[in-house]
């Protein structure tokens, strides 16, 4: 019973998080802040996936979340390198 309320609360929180990062990606002053916001958005996504797994009682989403985490990192690194050096593979 309580877990269901907790889940709903958590969904709302991370949903809010999604909206805030969305705002930041769109309106941030520079590219760097936007990339950071996008990375945060990916982290929120991971959390939502984990919550969904709990809600439905399945492990499938856990693995998906793991891959999302790994790939999100690579994307962010690529952006970072591009901003710092212009060329991502030197």
């Amino acid at each position, binding site marked *: 019973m309580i877990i269901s309320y907790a889940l709903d609360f958590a969904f709302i929180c991370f949903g809010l998080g999604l909206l805030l990062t969305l705002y930041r990606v769109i309106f941030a002053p520079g590219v760097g802040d936007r990339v950071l916001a*996008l990375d945060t958005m990916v982290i929120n996504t991971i959390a939502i996936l984990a919550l969904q797994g709990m809600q439905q009682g399945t492990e499938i989403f856990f693995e998906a979340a793991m891959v999302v985490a790994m790939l999100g990192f690579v994307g962010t690194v690529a952006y970072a390198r*591009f901003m710092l050096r212009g060329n991502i593979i030197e």
Partner: protein
Amino acid sequence: MSLFLIAALPFIGALLPGLMIQAGRNTCSTWTGIISLSALIGLLVHAPAVLRGEVITASVEWMPALGLNASFYLDGLGLLFGTLILGIGCLIILYARFYLSSKDPMGNFYTYLLLFQGAMVGIVLSDNILMLLVFWELTSLSSFLLIGYWKHLPEGRQGARMALTVTGMGGLGLIGGMLLLGHIAGTYELTELLEKRDLIQADPLYVPALLLILLGAFTKSAQFPFHFWLPRAMAAPTPVSAYLHSATMVKAGLFLMARLYPVMSGTTEWFWIVTLAGLITMVLGALIGIFQNDLKGLLAYSTVSHLGLITMLLGFSTEAAAIGAVFHIINHASFKASLFMTAGIVDHEAHTRDITRLGGLRHLMPITFVITAVASLSMAGIPPFNGFLSKEMMLEAAAHAQLGDNAWLIPALATLGALFSVAYSFRLLLHTWFGAERHDYPHHPHDPPFGMWLSPALLAVLVVLIGLFSQGLVGGIVQTTAASVLGNHAHPHVHLALWHGVTPALYMSGVAVLGGLVLLALYRPAHGLWHAVPRPDAKVIFDAIIDAATKLANWITDTLHDGKLTRYAAIFFLFTVLASWHAFSGGAGVTLPREPMQADIIPIIAWFALIAATGVTVYYHRHRLLALVVLGIIGVVVSLSFNYLSAPDLALTQLSVEVVTIVLLLLALNFLPEFTPKDSGNGRHVRDILIAVFVGGAVAALSYVIMLTDFAMPSIAEYHLAQSHDLAGGNNVVNVILVDFRGFDTFGEITVLGIAALIIYGVTEGLLGSKVRQKLLERKPNHPIAGDEHPMMMVVATRLLLPIALMVGVYIYLRGHNDPGGGFVAGLIVAIALLMQYMASGYDWADKRQRFPYHASIACGVMAAGITGIGAFFNNMPFLTSDFGYFQFPPLQKFELATAMGFDLGVFLAVVGAVMLTLESLSRLAYRRGDVPDEYPMDINPSRQPKNEDH
């Protein structure tokens, strides 16, 4: 000899001349002759049986699902045409040996000739009409090669092109007609189809089928108004003209009409179209023929006229006319091939074919003269030669034919055609051979060597013999052939004789001969009159039509494909929406039996984020990097919703493709300006926005309806869901579809992927030394650049991630058959893991440590998939049939092994190879030797010895 072998022999033999020419021209022509002769003998072995009325068949199933069988049959009609094709073919091969000069590539010539011969034999022996169509097209193509054999002559090339265009167009029509015919009859086998006369003629599709088939037959047989290509094809070497345009190719159209005669003839449509086309062609061709100065031109129009004659006879749809048609096919082939060959001899000896430059040749070339005289008298229809007999039969049939209520028009025009025919035949004979001997021939003529006049002489002997002993010599074959033309188990009464008594035909014949001679006597005024009357030039009209068609095609292409992506998208989307609207409005009304699902908070937020990100991407689209970052939101939301809608497979794929795309685009952005220039005006923007919103709305509406409706028919998804475990041993339906149910698709896709990667490699390889690259490398960067090329933190982090990521990749690959994952995603993850090393420590460092080339990885992947597929053969199953089983090796638990894993391994390897090769190729473009030596993985290396340790 099996019918298969007879049809295949010329094709197989077509390889020989090209090889044998190395051993000399005689060897080459001898071998070609041997092949033709063997096929002819093989065919004639069946002759006694066929003449007894038997039908020889040979058949194997080829693609039974399409109704396409490799089936041949030999009846009287096939035997007659086969004998003509192969027999005259042998004579032509002999003649061509002496005709072709030492400069002409003889190997090519004989190869083309045999290809053509094979195609013709295929047509006349085919039982399956689809296979007949294939051979039909082959004759068009191989005759194109033959007509254009003298590539250096513009007339040759133009003539070949015109012939191909006209006969090719007819061939297209014929395909349509034959498919309709097969559809009506419910079979594509001629032997069955020809029994269904009543069914076919009662069908409403009979008339369209008839029109299309006649289009094919008329273009091939040069019937009015498609007659014009034949005279232009005379630019070909004379053996080709003699073969194609007297005995074989142009007779293919007649053959087709004769073959389908049992089911197509007898109706009003058939009578009017075929009779009129034949009649007009006969009279017009003969009339034009009189005034031709080129010997071959005269013969060409004469051929057109005679083909018209035979067509007209087939149009009459009576037994006597059909017998006459069959008999005239034999006679025309014999005298016309002989005449073409003698025209070639004249050209060869006197170096001109212009009748006005010739005359008085009879003393200079006595042998050729005799041959020509016999053949041309036969062409004129003078007794006792064979042309007289069939012409009498034609006139007899015409005398009884009525055009509607009109009883005199056909006999009168037929007599007129015969009259013209007499005129041009005698013009050929008198103006070339009689008269005073001249001294201004371009080259002094004399009789050619034995081998060159042997072929026409044999035919001339045949002309005389058939004329004198018609019933005994060819009565049997005419009887059998007429029986197969008439079909429906007819037993035609054939009586061939020189003297039929005093009949209307004899009067008409007499009028024709006298009139023809009078016309020839008045040649000069007639010639003046002919040139005074304006008449359309077929070549001008043809060129104008081709020009107009080219312009139209160019206009359509230029309008639809102007190179702008926006226009392609606009056209595609609008067309799709219109087509969908058409389909949608034609269906049943929209009812929405399902209730929409309750929307949770997260989907609503995700939906909002998707809309917002899309809008913002459009807003930022000129700032390339920003647009890419904002697109990232869309990727995240899409993978989130895939997960939410229970498709974790798709989510994984979406994410990994997304990352690879980001890396790819960032590599490209390095070379691109920061901003896209504004390239279209506001008006176009408004237009594009309207289209986009409209199409987006339409797709949304369609999705809404689809999601709330049940499928009209059971969806294939149900089958896949139900069968995936039982048939393929996999619980992950997506993976099972990719590697098993639709494995052949995937096999093609990984091959294409590999090819694409190799092309990218090739293109970038070519750019490496280019000036553009140099200029881009030397440009001043827009933003200040950070100092460390290979930061230590990043190097360490990626090194730590490498084994983990590889492990994840292997895990995802292994479990793919039953749980979300599979070779494709695994390949992408491994590629990304490797890519990180390139990003962290640089191209050179990573590349040196990569020992296994990516090309090889692609190749191994495609091969692994292919070998897995072939493995099914050992199990007596078709390509790519998978198998699986459950095994137990202690101490492991029971586990499953499926052959699909081998296939999936192929996908995995191909994906890794293709992605890495692509990205490596692109990154190599930007590679430049850095400040820090490339043998070190990072800029500041703790393990490196300080350089100045002496201090």
